[in-house]
């Protein structure tokens, strides 16, 4: 334990230190948000095939009832987050940009739970297969933002043996504190969830990585893990993007995920702490994933808060519960300011991957014009992937996508560090996204 | 076959015609060129010793920078009136080739730069009379390059010190050589001032 936290001070090269702004909400215990009046539940809240609706307009549903089933292996079922009546199935705005088929449930305010849901006290008698099934049925997906169906991560191919599971409690995104609060409120559940995941994967070594700017969370998790020697809790240096799995794995296990590869290539599975908690709830109480911790924060909201909100909760309603927007509010972001997506409407719902809603004021949000690259190399130093964003940027700006590819643009995971430091304000991430699209087009 | 024949034939004709043209031109021009060169050289030498009545002939060759150079004794009725040497000095980007002529007391009468490859505008300032005139009337041990005002010695052209040094050294080598060869008397003074 001791030498662990000492070792933890080693860190990856590159990265940046954006102002954290976590004190807006860090000390505020999560409060339960009211029920959404109209829950808008997209059938695709995850990477992979959209799920298939099981309900029809007009049908009555109960909280936790499955309303859409997996559209394939890499997919996840979706459940009703409130009890009430299905009033519409159609395209509605989605926090990730385009409109998406969603099931709209008008809440009857009773929040009656689906009878089919039953507890399992002695879940540790169950075998990996049954456990994995339960996780899948509960529609759990990565809650760190990647929203990759968890049961898939938990079924690695034979040839890729997993020997380490890491829980990602870094929460390196500025402003966000949902994982922080979650770790304080539900530390033991998280550890239990971790143990279940380890059992499913047959792994003997588990870690929880937490940025050292949350000492209380580190303490809480250490206490919760005290009884289990196979689990270590690591305090990590505060540096964005510490939470990026490749960086996390590098720091904790010293292993380097090959470019273009996955954590499992080095025998590691990374899960967000929220995911672990969800796994516990699913296995212990049979509860599907219908709510999550959401931080509503930023200079643009009157009373920044941490919420426990139901999936499908419209941003507008949740923001109201946080006292509403200030007059200076200018930009609403699903997620944090580094990787989050800015929204053009407040009708979008909270989904499984929504760790927060950040509202920036005019002064923060003003988009400055960008100038030519002065080759200052700050972006190269900042890039955790050790790419050369400067040159990549110029190439894409001039439409030389192949050259950009030659400079490994495809290895960019869009953390935004380069764009953050660029003195010329160059929108590199934006260009990278375009390049990836163009290159994809060329491929097929 | 017939084709091939035509080709060869045509080529042969062209070759012959061209050969005639070029050969003809050569016949005409080569003597002209030869005399022109000869004349240039003689005029250059004559310039060095106008009063010499007899044609100026090489008196021997000497070594400078591993290359042979000629020297001459200009005479009027077999009486020496001037000693002349061709010489060279190592410059900025080339060897500066010169003619130096001394009177019978081994005082410099004149310098003529025959060729050089120094930088236009910088090194080629050595051609300016102002610089070359300095050498007139100087004797061996005065031929020292000075950066800055001087009447006694040779003043370097600023911005072209290296080329200036090339000329000065070339001249000094030649003068020393001539003094050693012909000036038993003045030889003593020649000892110092040699780099």
């Amino acid at each position, binding site marked *: 334990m001791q030498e662990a936290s000492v070792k933890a001070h080693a860190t990856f090269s590159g990265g940046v230190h954006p102002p954290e702004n976590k004190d807006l909400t860090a000390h505020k215990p999560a409060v339960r948000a009211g029920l959404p009046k109209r829950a808008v539940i997209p059938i695709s809240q995850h990477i992979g095939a959209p799920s298939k609706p099981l309900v029809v307009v007009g049908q009555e549903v109960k909280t936790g009832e499955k309303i859409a089933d997996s559209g394939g292996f890499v997919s996840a079922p979706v459940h009703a987050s409130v009890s009430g009546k299905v009033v519409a199935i159609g395209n509605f705005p989605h926090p990730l940009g385009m409109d998406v088929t969603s099931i709209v449930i008008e809440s009857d305010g009773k929040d009656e739970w689906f009878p089919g849901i039953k507890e399992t006290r002695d879940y540790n008698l169950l075998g990996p297969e049954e456990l994995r099934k339960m996780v899948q049925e509960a529609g759990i997906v990565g809650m760190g933002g990647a929203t990759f169906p968890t049961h898939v991560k938990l079924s690695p191919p034979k040839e890729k043996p997993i020997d380490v599971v890491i829980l990602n409690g870094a929460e390196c995104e500025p402003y966000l504190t949902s994982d922080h609060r979650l770790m304080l409120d539900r530390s033991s559940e998280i550890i239990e969830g971790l143990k279940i995941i380890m059992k499913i994967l047959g792994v003997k070594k588990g870690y929880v990585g937490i940025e050292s700017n949350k000492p209380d969370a580190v303490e809480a998790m250490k206490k919760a893990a005290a009884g289990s020697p196979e689990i270590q809790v690591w305090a990590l240096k505060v540096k964005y993007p510490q939470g990026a799995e490749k960086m996390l794995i590098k720091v904790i296990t010293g292993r380097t995920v090959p470019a273009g590869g996955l954590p499992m290539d080095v025998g590691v599975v990374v899960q967000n702490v929220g995911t672990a908690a969800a796994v516990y709830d699913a296995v212990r109480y049979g509860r599907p994933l219908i709510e999550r911790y959401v931080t509503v924060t930023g200079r643009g909201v009157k009373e920044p808060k941490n919420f426990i909100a139901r999936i499908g909760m419209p941003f507008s309603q949740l923001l109201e519960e946080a006292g509403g927007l200030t007059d200076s509010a200018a930009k609403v972001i699903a997620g944090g300011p580094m990787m989050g997506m800015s929204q053009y409407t407040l009708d979008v719902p909270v989904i499984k991957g929504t760790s927060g809603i950040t509202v920036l004021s005019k002064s923060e949000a003003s988009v400055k014009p960008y100038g030519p690259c002065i080759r200052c190399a700050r972006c190269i130093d900042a890039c955790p992937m050790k790419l050369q964003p400067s040159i990549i940027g110029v190439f894409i700006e001039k439409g030389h996508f192949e050259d950009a590819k030659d400079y490994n643009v495809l290895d960019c995971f869009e953390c935004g560090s380069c764009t953050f430091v660029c003195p010329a304000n160059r929108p590199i991430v934006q260009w990278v996204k375009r390049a990836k699209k163009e290159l994809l087009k060329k491929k097929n | 076959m017939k*084709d091939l024949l*035509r*080709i060869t034939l*045509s*080529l042969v004709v*062209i*070759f012959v015609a*061209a050969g005639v*043209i*070029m050969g003809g*031109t*050569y016949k005409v*021009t*080569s003597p*002209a*060129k030869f005399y*022109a*060169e000869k004349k*240039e050289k003689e005029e250059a030498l004559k310039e060095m010793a106008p009063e010499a009545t007899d044609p100026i002939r090489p008196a021997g060759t000497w070594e400078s920078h591993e290359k042979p150079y000629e020297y001459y004794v200009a005479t009027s009725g077999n009486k020496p009136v001037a000693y002349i040497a061709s010489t060279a000095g190592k410059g900025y980007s080339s060897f500066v080739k010169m003619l130096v002529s001394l009177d019978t007391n081994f005082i410099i009468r004149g310098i003529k730069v025959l*060729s050089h490859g120094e*930088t*236009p*505008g*910088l090194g080629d300032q050595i051609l300016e009379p102002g610089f070359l005139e300095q050498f007139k009337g100087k004797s061996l041990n005065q031929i020292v390059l000075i950066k800055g005002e001087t009447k006694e010695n040779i003043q370097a052209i600023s911005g072209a010190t290296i080329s200036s040094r090339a000329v000065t050294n070339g001249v000094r080598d030649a003068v020393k050589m001539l003094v050693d060869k012909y000036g038993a008397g003045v030889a003593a003074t020649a000892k110092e001032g040699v780099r």
Partner: protein
Amino acid sequence: MSGNGSANYWQIFKNGLFGENPVFRLALSLCPAVAVTSGVKNGFLMGVAVLFVMVMVNATVSLIRNFINPKVRIPSYMFIIATWVTVTDLVMAAYQRAVYKEMGLYIMLIVAFAIVLSRAEVFASRNKLLPSIVDGAGMGVGFLLALVLIGVFREFLGKGSLWGMQILSMNGKPLKPLLIMILPTGGFFAMGLLMGFLNWIDRRFFGGTGASGGGH
């Protein structure tokens, strides 16, 4: 390139001067354009040499054009060019000693100038004697003018003189505004700036594409 045998001699001639100026437009045989133009005089004499060679070559080629077998066309042309260059070289060496000392090498290199070969190939080999001579003359004069233009630009800025005559001077001493212009560096600058300037004029006033060709 426009090389039809239309008997409009002025057209053919003018084409060489402007439309397809060898240096500024076709960007052929660039070396001498930079190399010998540190002074107007050298530029002019080089131009004359090229003019002479081009006229003679074009004439010869068009005279014997029906007599040469296509298979050996190019070699024959090169041989003809080499011949006339040799003649020029020998004459210059004999009667233009001073100049020859400075640019003898470049005179000989006329043999490598793509412009000469290309005119022989493109024009002379398909046209009668007179048009060919006119074309050669046009191209030659165009080349000559280009060299003189560059020469004026460089010698004036570099030495403050033209054709060796000092024009600018300050209290007796010759005034040399920008020495660098007579060095290699300056030659390249002069070419680049003049080309750019001409392009600009072309785009601005004649709505041309203002593109200079490239390569040989």
